[in-house]
Protein backbone atom coordinates (compact mmCIF):
# COMPACT_ATOMS: atom_id res chain seq x y z
CA UNK A 1 0.00 0.00 0.00
CA UNK A 2 2.61 2.54 1.02
CA UNK A 3 4.87 1.70 -1.92
CA UNK A 4 1.94 2.26 -4.21
CA UNK A 5 1.17 5.53 -2.53
CA UNK A 6 4.72 6.81 -2.78
CA UNK A 7 4.75 5.86 -6.42
CA UNK A 8 1.51 7.74 -6.95
CA UNK A 9 2.84 10.89 -5.30
CA UNK A 10 6.03 10.62 -7.32
CA UNK A 11 4.09 10.31 -10.57
CA UNK A 12 2.11 13.41 -9.72
CA UNK A 13 5.24 15.33 -8.84
CA UNK A 14 6.91 14.37 -12.11
CA UNK A 15 3.78 15.36 -14.03
CA UNK A 16 3.56 18.75 -12.38
CA UNK A 17 7.24 19.44 -12.98
CA UNK A 18 7.02 18.45 -16.64
CA UNK A 19 3.86 20.46 -17.03
CA UNK A 20 5.53 23.57 -15.63
CA UNK A 21 8.60 22.96 -17.78
CA UNK A 22 6.46 22.64 -20.91
CA UNK A 23 4.59 25.84 -20.22
CA UNK A 24 7.57 27.83 -18.93
CA UNK A 25 8.20 29.50 -22.31
CA UNK A 26 4.71 30.98 -22.25
CA UNK A 27 5.24 32.20 -18.71
CA UNK A 28 8.48 33.86 -19.80
CA UNK A 29 6.69 35.61 -22.66
CA UNK A 30 3.93 37.00 -20.45
CA UNK A 31 6.25 38.07 -17.66
CA UNK A 32 8.71 39.82 -19.92
CA UNK A 33 6.05 41.50 -22.01
CA UNK A 34 5.47 43.78 -19.04
CA UNK A 35 9.04 44.81 -18.33
CA UNK A 36 11.32 47.47 -19.75
CA UNK A 37 13.93 46.19 -22.19
CA UNK A 38 16.80 46.79 -19.74
CA UNK A 39 15.05 44.86 -16.97
CA UNK A 40 14.38 41.96 -19.31
CA UNK A 41 18.04 41.53 -20.13
CA UNK A 42 19.08 41.98 -16.49
CA UNK A 43 16.55 39.59 -15.00
CA UNK A 44 14.35 37.64 -17.43
CA UNK A 45 12.70 35.25 -14.98
CA UNK A 46 11.36 37.40 -12.17
CA UNK A 47 7.85 38.78 -11.99
CA UNK A 48 7.47 42.31 -13.33
CA UNK A 49 7.16 45.24 -10.96
CA UNK A 50 4.49 46.95 -12.94
CA UNK A 51 1.87 44.99 -14.86
CA UNK A 52 0.50 48.12 -16.50
CA UNK A 53 3.49 48.05 -18.84
CA UNK A 54 1.94 45.00 -20.48
CA UNK A 55 -0.98 47.09 -21.63
CA UNK A 56 1.31 49.83 -22.89
CA UNK A 57 3.37 47.34 -24.85
CA UNK A 58 0.27 45.74 -26.31
CA UNK A 59 -0.94 49.17 -27.44
CA UNK A 60 2.44 49.95 -28.94
CA UNK A 61 2.56 46.66 -30.86
CA UNK A 62 -1.03 46.84 -32.06
CA UNK A 63 -0.51 50.27 -33.58
CA UNK A 64 2.95 49.62 -34.90
CA UNK A 65 3.04 50.05 -38.70
CA UNK A 66 5.06 46.84 -39.19
CA UNK A 67 2.77 44.74 -37.05
CA UNK A 68 -0.57 46.47 -37.59
CA UNK A 69 -2.18 43.82 -35.44
CA UNK A 70 -5.86 44.11 -36.30
CA UNK A 71 -5.18 44.28 -40.00
CA UNK A 72 -2.84 41.25 -39.86
CA UNK A 73 -5.30 39.36 -37.71
CA UNK A 74 -8.04 40.10 -40.20
CA UNK A 75 -5.85 39.10 -43.14
CA UNK A 76 -5.00 35.82 -41.43
CA UNK A 77 -8.66 35.24 -40.65
CA UNK A 78 -9.86 36.07 -44.18
CA UNK A 79 -7.25 33.85 -45.81
CA UNK A 80 -7.87 30.96 -43.40
CA UNK A 81 -11.68 31.10 -43.59
CA UNK A 82 -11.85 31.49 -47.37
CA UNK A 83 -9.26 28.76 -47.94
CA UNK A 84 -10.98 26.35 -45.56
CA UNK A 85 -14.38 26.88 -47.15
CA UNK A 86 -12.96 26.43 -50.62
CA UNK A 87 -10.83 23.41 -49.71
CA UNK A 88 -13.67 21.60 -47.98
CA UNK A 89 -16.19 22.29 -50.74
CA UNK A 90 -13.93 21.56 -53.71
CA UNK A 91 -12.37 18.47 -52.12
CA UNK A 92 -15.72 17.03 -51.03
CA UNK A 93 -17.13 17.40 -54.53
CA UNK A 94 -14.04 15.89 -56.11
CA UNK A 95 -13.75 13.05 -53.60
CA UNK A 96 -17.42 12.15 -54.08
CA UNK A 97 -17.04 11.97 -57.87
CA UNK A 98 -13.87 9.91 -57.50
CA UNK A 99 -15.50 7.42 -55.12
CA UNK A 100 -18.74 6.95 -57.05
CA UNK A 101 -17.15 6.33 -60.43
CA UNK A 102 -15.41 3.01 -60.67
CA UNK A 103 -13.48 3.83 -63.82
CA UNK A 104 -9.86 3.89 -64.77
CA UNK A 105 -9.74 7.70 -64.89
CA UNK A 106 -11.07 8.06 -61.37
CA UNK A 107 -8.44 5.68 -59.99
CA UNK A 108 -5.70 7.49 -61.87
CA UNK A 109 -6.77 10.94 -60.67
CA UNK A 110 -7.07 9.69 -57.09
CA UNK A 111 -3.64 8.05 -57.23
CA UNK A 112 -2.08 11.28 -58.50
CA UNK A 113 -3.63 13.23 -55.62
CA UNK A 114 -2.36 10.68 -53.10
CA UNK A 115 1.11 10.41 -54.59
CA UNK A 116 1.44 14.21 -54.56
CA UNK A 117 1.32 14.20 -50.76
CA UNK A 118 5.01 13.24 -50.91
CA UNK A 119 5.95 16.40 -52.82
CA UNK A 120 7.55 18.87 -50.39
CA UNK A 121 6.79 22.55 -50.80
CA UNK A 122 10.47 23.31 -51.43
CA UNK A 123 10.49 21.53 -54.77
CA UNK A 124 7.60 23.54 -56.19
CA UNK A 125 8.08 26.93 -54.54
CA UNK A 126 10.52 28.51 -57.00
CA UNK A 127 8.77 27.46 -60.22
CA UNK A 128 5.43 28.26 -58.57
CA UNK A 129 6.44 31.87 -58.11
CA UNK A 130 7.62 32.39 -61.68
CA UNK A 131 4.70 30.40 -63.10
CA UNK A 132 2.14 32.41 -61.11
CA UNK A 133 3.82 35.63 -62.21
CA UNK A 134 3.52 34.57 -65.84
CA UNK A 135 -0.11 33.52 -65.46
CA UNK A 136 -0.92 36.83 -63.74
CA UNK A 137 0.74 38.86 -66.47
CA UNK A 138 -1.01 36.92 -69.18
CA UNK A 139 -4.53 36.67 -67.79
CA UNK A 140 -4.72 39.87 -65.79
CA UNK A 141 -5.88 37.96 -62.70
CA UNK A 142 -3.32 38.69 -60.01
CA UNK A 143 -2.17 35.51 -58.30
CA UNK A 144 0.66 37.06 -56.28
CA UNK A 145 0.07 39.55 -53.43
CA UNK A 146 -3.66 38.92 -53.50
CA UNK A 147 -6.27 37.01 -51.53
CA UNK A 148 -7.42 35.24 -54.68
CA UNK A 149 -3.97 33.89 -55.42
CA UNK A 150 -3.15 32.60 -51.98
CA UNK A 151 -6.57 31.02 -51.47
CA UNK A 152 -6.21 29.36 -54.86
CA UNK A 153 -2.78 28.04 -53.86
CA UNK A 154 -4.13 26.68 -50.59
CA UNK A 155 -6.86 24.80 -52.46
CA UNK A 156 -4.14 23.25 -54.59
CA UNK A 157 -1.84 22.32 -51.72
CA UNK A 158 -4.61 21.28 -49.35
CA UNK A 159 -6.63 19.18 -51.76
CA UNK A 160 -4.30 16.15 -51.79
CA UNK A 161 -4.61 15.26 -48.13
CA UNK A 162 -8.22 16.42 -47.85
CA UNK A 163 -9.38 14.33 -50.80
CA UNK A 164 -7.49 11.36 -49.38
CA UNK A 165 -9.25 11.62 -46.01
CA UNK A 166 -12.70 12.31 -47.50
CA UNK A 167 -12.31 9.53 -50.07
CA UNK A 168 -11.86 6.99 -47.28
CA UNK A 169 -14.91 8.32 -45.49
CA UNK A 170 -17.28 8.53 -48.46
CA UNK A 171 -16.40 4.95 -49.45
CA UNK A 172 -18.19 3.81 -46.29
CA UNK A 173 -21.42 5.66 -47.05
CA UNK A 174 -23.82 3.08 -48.56
CA UNK A 175 -24.64 3.81 -52.19
CA UNK A 176 -28.25 2.68 -51.58
CA UNK A 177 -28.91 6.05 -49.92
CA UNK A 178 -28.06 7.84 -53.14
CA UNK A 179 -29.89 5.34 -55.29
CA UNK A 180 -33.10 5.84 -53.35
CA UNK A 181 -32.90 9.60 -53.80
CA UNK A 182 -32.11 9.26 -57.50
CA UNK A 183 -35.14 7.02 -58.02
CA UNK A 184 -37.26 9.61 -56.23
CA UNK A 185 -36.21 12.04 -58.94
CA UNK A 186 -33.37 13.92 -57.31
CA UNK A 187 -30.59 15.28 -59.50
CA UNK A 188 -27.03 14.04 -58.87
CA UNK A 189 -25.95 17.46 -57.56
CA UNK A 190 -29.03 17.42 -55.30
CA UNK A 191 -27.95 14.06 -53.94
CA UNK A 192 -24.54 15.45 -53.16
CA UNK A 193 -25.64 18.66 -51.47
CA UNK A 194 -28.66 17.27 -49.62
CA UNK A 195 -27.48 13.78 -48.63
CA UNK A 196 -23.72 13.36 -48.87
CA UNK A 197 -22.50 16.76 -47.68
CA UNK A 198 -24.51 16.68 -44.41
CA UNK A 199 -23.26 13.14 -43.75
CA UNK A 200 -19.68 14.34 -44.05
CA UNK A 201 -19.93 16.60 -41.00
CA UNK A 202 -17.87 14.52 -38.56
CA UNK A 203 -14.96 14.11 -40.96
CA UNK A 204 -15.17 17.75 -42.08
CA UNK A 205 -14.24 18.71 -38.52
CA UNK A 206 -10.99 16.76 -38.84
CA UNK A 207 -10.29 18.29 -42.22
CA UNK A 208 -11.06 21.82 -41.03
CA UNK A 209 -8.78 21.55 -38.01
CA UNK A 210 -5.87 19.97 -39.85
CA UNK A 211 -5.98 22.51 -42.67
CA UNK A 212 -6.88 25.40 -40.37
CA UNK A 213 -3.89 24.99 -38.05
CA UNK A 214 -1.60 24.58 -41.03
CA UNK A 215 -2.85 27.64 -42.92
CA UNK A 216 -3.05 29.88 -39.86
CA UNK A 217 0.56 29.12 -38.89
CA UNK A 218 2.02 28.78 -42.38
CA UNK A 219 4.99 30.99 -43.06
CA UNK A 220 6.87 30.02 -46.20
CA UNK A 221 4.03 30.08 -48.73
CA UNK A 222 2.59 33.45 -47.66
CA UNK A 223 6.06 34.95 -47.29
CA UNK A 224 6.79 34.06 -50.91
CA UNK A 225 3.38 34.87 -52.39
CA UNK A 226 2.53 37.97 -50.36
CA UNK A 227 6.01 39.22 -49.47
CA UNK A 228 7.25 40.12 -45.98
CA UNK A 229 6.38 43.76 -46.45
CA UNK A 230 3.45 43.52 -48.80
CA UNK A 231 -0.02 44.98 -48.36
CA UNK A 232 -1.51 41.71 -47.17
CA UNK A 233 0.22 40.23 -44.13
CA UNK A 234 -0.71 37.18 -42.12
CA UNK A 235 0.22 37.10 -38.42
CA UNK A 236 3.41 35.02 -38.83
CA UNK A 237 4.55 37.45 -41.54
CA UNK A 238 3.71 40.44 -39.36
CA UNK A 239 5.74 39.03 -36.45
CA UNK A 240 8.69 38.31 -38.73
CA UNK A 241 8.66 41.76 -40.26
CA UNK A 242 8.26 43.26 -36.78
CA UNK A 243 11.23 41.29 -35.43
CA UNK A 244 13.24 42.31 -38.46
CA UNK A 245 12.75 46.01 -37.77
CA UNK A 246 13.03 45.93 -33.96
CA UNK A 247 16.13 43.82 -33.47
CA UNK A 248 16.85 43.25 -29.76
CA UNK A 249 13.80 45.23 -28.61
CA UNK A 250 12.73 42.18 -26.68
CA UNK A 251 9.97 43.91 -24.71
CA UNK A 252 8.11 44.61 -27.94
CA UNK A 253 9.11 41.41 -29.74
CA UNK A 254 7.83 39.22 -26.92
CA UNK A 255 4.61 41.22 -26.75
CA UNK A 256 4.15 40.70 -30.48
CA UNK A 257 4.60 36.93 -30.11
CA UNK A 258 2.12 36.99 -27.23
CA UNK A 259 -0.45 38.73 -29.42
CA UNK A 260 0.23 36.34 -32.27
CA UNK A 261 -0.31 33.29 -30.05
CA UNK A 262 -3.41 34.57 -28.32
CA UNK A 263 -6.09 33.75 -30.94
CA UNK A 264 -5.06 30.09 -31.24
CA UNK A 265 -4.73 29.65 -27.49
CA UNK A 266 -8.18 31.11 -26.91
CA UNK A 267 -9.65 28.90 -29.62
CA UNK A 268 -7.93 25.90 -28.06
CA UNK A 269 -9.44 26.61 -24.65
CA UNK A 270 -12.91 26.46 -26.17
CA UNK A 271 -12.52 23.67 -28.69
CA UNK A 272 -9.81 21.58 -27.05
CA UNK A 273 -11.57 18.26 -27.49
CA UNK A 274 -12.26 18.75 -31.20
CA UNK A 275 -8.81 20.12 -31.97
CA UNK A 276 -6.93 17.24 -30.35
CA UNK A 277 -9.26 14.67 -31.86
CA UNK A 278 -9.04 16.22 -35.31
CA UNK A 279 -5.26 16.39 -35.36
CA UNK A 280 -4.82 12.85 -34.07
CA UNK A 281 -7.31 11.39 -36.54
CA UNK A 282 -5.64 13.24 -39.38
CA UNK A 283 -2.29 11.70 -38.48
CA UNK A 284 -3.59 8.17 -38.16
CA UNK A 285 -5.25 8.29 -41.54
Amino acid at each position, binding site marked *: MTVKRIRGVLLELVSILLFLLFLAPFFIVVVNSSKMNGDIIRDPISFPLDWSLLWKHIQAVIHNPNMNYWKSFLDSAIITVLSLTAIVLCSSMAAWVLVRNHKKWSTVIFMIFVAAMVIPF*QVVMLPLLSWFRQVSNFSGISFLSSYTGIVFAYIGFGSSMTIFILHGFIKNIPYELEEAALIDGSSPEGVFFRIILPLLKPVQMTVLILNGIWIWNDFLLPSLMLGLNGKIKTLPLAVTSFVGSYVKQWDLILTSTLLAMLPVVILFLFAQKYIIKGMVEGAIK
Partner: protein
Amino acid sequence: MIYMAKKKLSTVLAAIGILVTIFALWISLQYRTLTSGFLAWPASIRGVLLITGILFIILGVYFYPTKKHRTIINILFLLPAVLAFTMTVIIPFILGVFYSFTDWNGITLNNFIGFENYKDFFKSPEYIHSFMATLIFTILNMLLVNIIAFGLSLLVTSKIRGRNIYRAGFFIPNLIGGIVLGYIWQFIFNYVITDIAAAMNIKSLSQSLLALPDRAILAIIIVSTWQYAGYIMMIYVTAIQGVPASVIEAAKMDGAHGFKRITKIIAPLIANSFTICIFLTLVNSFKQFDLNYAITNGGPSKLFMGKAIHSTELLALNIYKTAFTRNDMAVAQAKAVVFFVLLAIVSLIQVYVSKKKEVEM
Protein backbone atom coordinates in the same frame (compact mmCIF):
# COMPACT_ATOMS: atom_id res chain seq x y z
CA MET B 1 -41.98 23.75 -73.91
CA ILE B 2 -39.88 24.24 -70.78
CA TYR B 3 -37.40 21.78 -72.20
CA MET B 4 -36.97 23.84 -75.37
CA ALA B 5 -36.70 27.13 -73.46
CA LYS B 6 -34.09 25.64 -71.16
CA LYS B 7 -32.15 24.35 -74.11
CA LYS B 8 -32.21 27.73 -75.84
CA LEU B 9 -31.29 29.64 -72.71
CA SER B 10 -28.36 27.42 -71.82
CA THR B 11 -27.07 27.52 -75.41
CA VAL B 12 -27.19 31.31 -75.39
CA LEU B 13 -25.41 31.44 -72.01
CA ALA B 14 -22.67 29.11 -73.18
CA ALA B 15 -22.31 31.01 -76.47
CA ILE B 16 -21.91 34.35 -74.66
CA GLY B 17 -19.43 32.70 -72.33
CA ILE B 18 -17.36 31.31 -75.16
CA LEU B 19 -17.30 34.65 -76.96
CA VAL B 20 -16.28 36.59 -73.85
CA THR B 21 -13.60 34.02 -72.99
CA ILE B 22 -12.15 34.07 -76.49
CA PHE B 23 -12.18 37.87 -76.46
CA ALA B 24 -10.41 37.96 -73.08
CA LEU B 25 -7.80 35.48 -74.24
CA TRP B 26 -7.30 37.36 -77.49
CA ILE B 27 -6.67 40.60 -75.58
CA SER B 28 -4.32 38.75 -73.26
CA LEU B 29 -2.29 37.47 -76.18
CA GLN B 30 -1.59 40.95 -77.49
CA TYR B 31 -1.74 42.78 -74.21
CA ARG B 32 1.58 44.53 -74.75
CA THR B 33 0.39 46.33 -77.86
CA LEU B 34 -2.90 47.42 -76.33
CA THR B 35 -1.77 49.83 -73.63
CA SER B 36 -3.48 52.72 -75.44
CA GLY B 37 -6.39 53.10 -77.82
CA PHE B 38 -9.97 51.97 -77.47
CA LEU B 39 -8.97 48.45 -76.33
CA ALA B 40 -6.93 49.74 -73.38
CA TRP B 41 -9.88 49.62 -71.03
CA PRO B 42 -11.02 46.06 -71.81
CA ALA B 43 -7.37 45.06 -71.59
CA SER B 44 -7.18 46.36 -68.06
CA ILE B 45 -10.16 44.28 -66.97
CA ARG B 46 -9.27 41.18 -69.02
CA GLY B 47 -9.00 39.11 -65.83
CA VAL B 48 -12.59 39.88 -64.87
CA LEU B 49 -13.71 39.22 -68.43
CA LEU B 50 -11.99 35.83 -68.46
CA ILE B 51 -13.59 34.74 -65.18
CA THR B 52 -17.03 35.98 -66.26
CA GLY B 53 -16.72 34.17 -69.58
CA ILE B 54 -15.79 30.89 -67.91
CA LEU B 55 -18.64 31.25 -65.39
CA PHE B 56 -21.11 31.73 -68.25
CA ILE B 57 -19.83 28.63 -70.00
CA ILE B 58 -20.16 26.61 -66.78
CA LEU B 59 -23.72 27.86 -66.22
CA GLY B 60 -24.66 27.13 -69.82
CA VAL B 61 -23.29 23.61 -69.66
CA TYR B 62 -24.87 23.01 -66.26
CA PHE B 63 -28.38 24.01 -67.35
CA TYR B 64 -28.24 22.20 -70.68
CA PRO B 65 -30.90 19.47 -70.49
CA THR B 66 -29.39 16.15 -71.53
CA LYS B 67 -29.29 12.50 -70.58
CA LYS B 68 -25.57 12.92 -69.87
CA HIS B 69 -26.23 15.30 -66.98
CA ARG B 70 -24.34 12.99 -64.61
CA THR B 71 -21.21 13.25 -66.74
CA ILE B 72 -21.46 17.04 -66.76
CA ILE B 73 -21.77 17.07 -62.97
CA ASN B 74 -18.75 14.77 -62.68
CA ILE B 75 -16.65 17.16 -64.72
CA LEU B 76 -17.91 20.32 -63.00
CA PHE B 77 -17.36 18.81 -59.53
CA LEU B 78 -13.85 17.67 -60.31
CA LEU B 79 -12.84 20.86 -62.08
CA PRO B 80 -12.06 23.26 -59.17
CA ALA B 81 -9.90 20.87 -57.16
CA VAL B 82 -8.15 19.42 -60.19
CA LEU B 83 -7.53 22.86 -61.70
CA ALA B 84 -6.08 24.35 -58.50
CA PHE B 85 -4.04 21.23 -57.86
CA THR B 86 -2.65 21.15 -61.39
CA MET B 87 -1.80 24.85 -61.34
CA THR B 88 -0.10 24.87 -57.94
CA VAL B 89 1.43 21.41 -57.64
CA ILE B 90 1.66 19.47 -60.89
CA ILE B 91 2.79 22.17 -63.31
CA PRO B 92 5.33 23.76 -60.91
CA PHE B 93 6.60 20.29 -60.05
CA ILE B 94 7.21 19.36 -63.69
CA LEU B 95 8.71 22.80 -64.38
CA GLY B 96 10.87 22.45 -61.29
CA VAL B 97 12.36 19.13 -62.32
CA PHE B 98 12.98 20.55 -65.79
CA TYR B 99 14.56 23.80 -64.50
CA SER B 100 16.99 21.85 -62.36
CA PHE B 101 18.71 20.70 -65.56
CA THR B 102 18.99 24.20 -67.02
CA ASP B 103 20.66 27.52 -66.24
CA TRP B 104 17.31 29.01 -65.12
CA ASN B 105 17.72 32.25 -63.15
CA GLY B 106 14.19 32.59 -61.86
CA ILE B 107 12.90 34.40 -64.91
CA THR B 108 14.52 33.12 -68.09
CA LEU B 109 16.62 30.18 -69.14
CA ASN B 110 19.05 29.90 -72.01
CA ASN B 111 20.67 26.51 -71.96
CA PHE B 112 20.01 22.93 -71.07
CA ILE B 113 23.05 21.98 -69.01
CA GLY B 114 22.29 18.44 -67.87
CA PHE B 115 23.62 17.52 -64.45
CA GLU B 116 25.88 20.59 -64.07
CA ASN B 117 23.79 22.02 -61.20
CA TYR B 118 23.85 18.73 -59.35
CA LYS B 119 27.59 18.25 -59.83
CA ASP B 120 28.13 21.75 -58.52
CA PHE B 121 26.60 21.40 -55.11
CA PHE B 122 27.33 17.75 -54.37
CA LYS B 123 30.98 18.68 -53.92
CA SER B 124 30.49 21.91 -51.97
CA PRO B 125 31.36 21.73 -48.24
CA GLU B 126 28.33 23.87 -47.41
CA TYR B 127 25.93 21.31 -48.89
CA ILE B 128 27.71 18.28 -47.46
CA HIS B 129 27.58 19.85 -44.03
CA SER B 130 23.94 20.81 -44.40
CA PHE B 131 23.14 17.28 -45.53
CA MET B 132 24.89 15.68 -42.56
CA ALA B 133 23.40 18.17 -40.11
CA THR B 134 19.93 17.37 -41.43
CA LEU B 135 20.55 13.64 -41.13
CA ILE B 136 21.75 13.94 -37.54
CA PHE B 137 18.97 16.36 -36.67
CA THR B 138 16.30 14.13 -38.18
CA ILE B 139 17.41 10.95 -36.44
CA LEU B 140 18.02 12.55 -33.04
CA ASN B 141 14.79 14.46 -33.21
CA MET B 142 12.81 11.39 -34.24
CA LEU B 143 14.22 9.37 -31.34
CA LEU B 144 13.78 12.12 -28.76
CA VAL B 145 10.25 13.05 -29.78
CA ASN B 146 9.08 9.45 -29.73
CA ILE B 147 10.75 8.53 -26.45
CA ILE B 148 9.46 11.62 -24.66
CA ALA B 149 6.03 11.37 -26.27
CA PHE B 150 5.67 7.73 -25.29
CA GLY B 151 6.78 8.50 -21.75
CA LEU B 152 4.31 11.35 -21.51
CA SER B 153 1.52 9.21 -22.90
CA LEU B 154 2.12 6.62 -20.17
CA LEU B 155 2.09 9.40 -17.61
CA VAL B 156 -1.20 10.91 -18.76
CA THR B 157 -2.94 7.53 -19.07
CA SER B 158 -1.94 6.53 -15.53
CA LYS B 159 -4.20 7.19 -12.60
CA ILE B 160 -2.97 10.69 -11.78
CA ARG B 161 -5.36 13.53 -11.08
CA GLY B 162 -5.95 16.20 -13.72
CA ARG B 163 -4.88 14.05 -16.67
CA ASN B 164 -6.78 16.18 -19.14
CA ILE B 165 -5.08 19.37 -18.04
CA TYR B 166 -1.68 17.75 -18.50
CA ARG B 167 -2.65 16.51 -21.94
CA ALA B 168 -3.77 19.96 -22.99
CA GLY B 169 -0.62 21.54 -21.58
CA PHE B 170 1.73 19.17 -23.37
CA PHE B 171 -0.25 19.53 -26.58
CA ILE B 172 -0.46 23.30 -26.80
CA PRO B 173 3.02 24.13 -28.21
CA ASN B 174 2.03 22.16 -31.28
CA LEU B 175 -0.75 24.59 -32.16
CA ILE B 176 1.51 27.60 -32.45
CA GLY B 177 3.55 28.28 -35.53
CA GLY B 178 7.27 27.51 -35.61
CA ILE B 179 8.11 31.09 -36.54
CA VAL B 180 6.55 32.60 -33.42
CA LEU B 181 7.90 29.84 -31.16
CA GLY B 182 11.31 30.23 -32.74
CA TYR B 183 11.62 33.88 -31.77
CA ILE B 184 10.52 33.11 -28.22
CA TRP B 185 13.11 30.37 -27.87
CA GLN B 186 15.81 32.53 -29.39
CA PHE B 187 15.21 34.84 -26.46
CA ILE B 188 15.17 31.95 -23.98
CA PHE B 189 18.48 30.55 -25.19
CA ASN B 190 20.20 33.90 -25.38
CA TYR B 191 18.98 35.47 -22.15
CA VAL B 192 16.97 33.19 -19.86
CA ILE B 193 19.16 30.09 -19.82
CA THR B 194 22.37 32.10 -19.59
CA ASP B 195 20.82 34.09 -16.75
CA ILE B 196 19.87 30.95 -14.84
CA ALA B 197 23.30 29.46 -15.49
CA ALA B 198 24.99 32.57 -14.15
CA ALA B 199 22.79 32.58 -11.06
CA MET B 200 23.51 28.92 -10.36
CA ASN B 201 27.15 29.23 -11.36
CA ILE B 202 27.06 26.60 -14.08
CA LYS B 203 30.03 27.43 -16.29
CA SER B 204 29.16 25.13 -19.17
CA LEU B 205 25.88 26.94 -19.81
CA SER B 206 27.10 30.46 -19.29
CA GLN B 207 27.45 31.03 -23.02
CA SER B 208 24.35 30.94 -25.19
CA LEU B 209 23.86 27.65 -26.98
CA LEU B 210 23.11 29.60 -30.13
CA ALA B 211 26.63 31.04 -30.23
CA LEU B 212 28.36 27.66 -30.29
CA PRO B 213 28.75 26.33 -33.84
CA ASP B 214 29.01 22.70 -32.80
CA ARG B 215 26.07 22.72 -30.45
CA ALA B 216 23.60 25.25 -31.81
CA ILE B 217 21.81 22.44 -33.61
CA LEU B 218 20.88 21.08 -30.19
CA ALA B 219 18.81 24.19 -29.63
CA ILE B 220 16.65 23.41 -32.64
CA ILE B 221 16.34 19.79 -31.50
CA ILE B 222 15.19 20.89 -28.05
CA VAL B 223 12.55 23.26 -29.39
CA SER B 224 11.39 20.86 -32.07
CA THR B 225 11.00 18.10 -29.49
CA TRP B 226 9.15 20.41 -27.15
CA GLN B 227 6.84 21.52 -29.96
CA TYR B 228 6.14 18.09 -31.35
CA ALA B 229 6.13 15.71 -28.37
CA GLY B 230 2.63 16.64 -27.20
CA TYR B 231 1.15 15.86 -30.58
CA ILE B 232 2.82 12.46 -30.88
CA MET B 233 1.88 11.85 -27.25
CA MET B 234 -1.80 12.20 -28.13
CA ILE B 235 -1.45 9.60 -30.89
CA TYR B 236 0.05 7.18 -28.36
CA VAL B 237 -2.65 8.07 -25.85
CA THR B 238 -5.35 7.21 -28.38
CA ALA B 239 -3.62 3.90 -29.07
CA ILE B 240 -3.14 3.02 -25.41
CA GLN B 241 -6.78 3.76 -24.71
CA GLY B 242 -7.62 1.33 -27.49
CA VAL B 243 -5.95 -1.52 -25.62
CA PRO B 244 -8.82 -3.54 -24.12
CA ALA B 245 -9.10 -3.21 -20.34
CA SER B 246 -9.54 -6.99 -20.10
CA VAL B 247 -6.05 -7.54 -21.53
CA ILE B 248 -4.50 -5.22 -18.95
CA GLU B 249 -6.56 -6.88 -16.22
CA ALA B 250 -5.40 -10.35 -17.29
CA ALA B 251 -1.79 -9.17 -17.36
CA LYS B 252 -2.17 -7.84 -13.82
CA MET B 253 -3.57 -11.17 -12.67
CA ASP B 254 -0.62 -12.97 -14.20
CA GLY B 255 1.73 -10.71 -12.29
CA ALA B 256 2.94 -8.43 -15.07
CA HIS B 257 3.61 -5.15 -13.27
CA GLY B 258 4.97 -1.76 -14.12
CA PHE B 259 7.78 -1.91 -16.61
CA LYS B 260 7.00 -5.43 -17.72
CA ARG B 261 3.41 -4.52 -18.48
CA ILE B 262 4.61 -1.66 -20.67
CA THR B 263 7.24 -3.55 -22.67
CA LYS B 264 5.51 -6.92 -22.93
CA ILE B 265 1.83 -5.98 -23.22
CA ILE B 266 1.21 -2.36 -24.20
CA ALA B 267 4.14 -1.77 -26.57
CA PRO B 268 3.48 -4.81 -28.82
CA LEU B 269 -0.23 -4.02 -28.93
CA ILE B 270 0.33 -0.51 -30.18
CA ALA B 271 3.20 -1.37 -32.54
CA ASN B 272 1.21 0.12 -35.38
CA SER B 273 1.23 3.55 -33.74
CA PHE B 274 4.99 3.35 -33.36
CA THR B 275 5.32 2.89 -37.11
CA ILE B 276 3.02 5.82 -37.82
CA CYS B 277 4.73 8.12 -35.34
CA ILE B 278 8.25 7.21 -36.37
CA PHE B 279 7.60 8.01 -40.01
CA LEU B 280 5.58 11.10 -39.17
CA THR B 281 8.42 12.52 -37.09
CA LEU B 282 11.05 11.44 -39.63
CA VAL B 283 9.36 13.28 -42.46
CA ASN B 284 8.50 16.35 -40.41
CA SER B 285 11.97 16.68 -38.90
CA PHE B 286 13.51 16.30 -42.31
CA LYS B 287 11.36 19.15 -43.60
CA GLN B 288 12.02 21.43 -40.62
CA PHE B 289 12.18 25.04 -41.77
CA ASP B 290 10.31 27.49 -39.54
CA LEU B 291 12.20 26.84 -36.31
CA ASN B 292 15.50 26.80 -38.15
CA TYR B 293 14.68 30.12 -39.78
CA ALA B 294 13.53 31.85 -36.61
CA ILE B 295 15.98 30.46 -34.02
CA THR B 296 19.39 30.40 -35.73
CA ASN B 297 18.73 31.32 -39.36
CA GLY B 298 21.65 29.05 -40.20
CA GLY B 299 24.23 30.63 -37.91
CA PRO B 300 26.74 30.66 -36.31
CA SER B 301 29.36 30.04 -38.97
CA LYS B 302 32.28 27.69 -38.67
CA LEU B 303 35.04 26.17 -40.77
CA PHE B 304 34.29 22.92 -42.52
CA MET B 305 36.55 21.26 -45.12
CA GLY B 306 38.48 24.50 -45.29
CA LYS B 307 35.50 26.71 -45.99
CA ALA B 308 33.36 28.98 -43.82
CA ILE B 309 29.85 27.53 -43.66
CA HIS B 310 26.66 28.01 -41.67
CA SER B 311 26.66 25.43 -38.93
CA THR B 312 22.89 24.98 -38.49
CA GLU B 313 21.61 25.35 -42.01
CA LEU B 314 19.31 22.36 -42.50
CA LEU B 315 18.46 21.32 -46.06
CA ALA B 316 15.14 23.18 -46.30
CA LEU B 317 16.78 26.42 -45.19
CA ASN B 318 19.77 25.71 -47.41
CA ILE B 319 17.48 25.52 -50.45
CA TYR B 320 15.75 28.74 -49.41
CA LYS B 321 19.03 30.60 -48.92
CA THR B 322 20.55 29.26 -52.12
CA ALA B 323 17.58 30.72 -53.95
CA PHE B 324 16.97 34.01 -52.17
CA THR B 325 20.26 35.01 -50.53
CA ARG B 326 22.73 33.59 -53.02
CA ASN B 327 20.36 34.00 -55.98
CA ASP B 328 21.27 30.65 -57.48
CA MET B 329 17.83 29.60 -58.65
CA ALA B 330 18.79 26.60 -60.79
CA VAL B 331 21.11 25.17 -58.13
CA ALA B 332 18.45 25.69 -55.45
CA GLN B 333 15.97 23.88 -57.67
CA ALA B 334 18.38 20.97 -58.17
CA LYS B 335 18.85 20.75 -54.40
CA ALA B 336 15.08 20.75 -53.99
CA VAL B 337 14.75 17.86 -56.43
CA VAL B 338 17.25 15.84 -54.39
CA PHE B 339 15.28 16.82 -51.26
CA PHE B 340 12.14 15.46 -52.91
CA VAL B 341 13.81 12.20 -53.95
CA LEU B 342 15.01 11.58 -50.39
CA LEU B 343 11.52 12.18 -49.00
CA ALA B 344 9.99 9.95 -51.64
CA ILE B 345 12.35 7.13 -50.64
CA VAL B 346 11.34 7.48 -46.98
CA SER B 347 7.67 7.36 -47.99
CA LEU B 348 8.19 4.28 -50.13
CA ILE B 349 9.89 2.53 -47.22
CA GLN B 350 6.93 3.51 -45.04
CA VAL B 351 4.43 2.03 -47.49
CA TYR B 352 6.53 -1.13 -47.72
CA VAL B 353 6.80 -1.48 -43.95
CA SER B 354 3.08 -0.92 -43.33
CA LYS B 355 2.13 -3.37 -46.09
CA LYS B 356 4.39 -6.01 -44.59
CA LYS B 357 2.88 -5.45 -41.17
CA GLU B 358 -0.62 -5.87 -42.54
CA VAL B 359 0.30 -9.22 -44.03
CA GLU B 360 1.75 -10.40 -40.74
CA MET B 361 -1.39 -9.43 -38.90
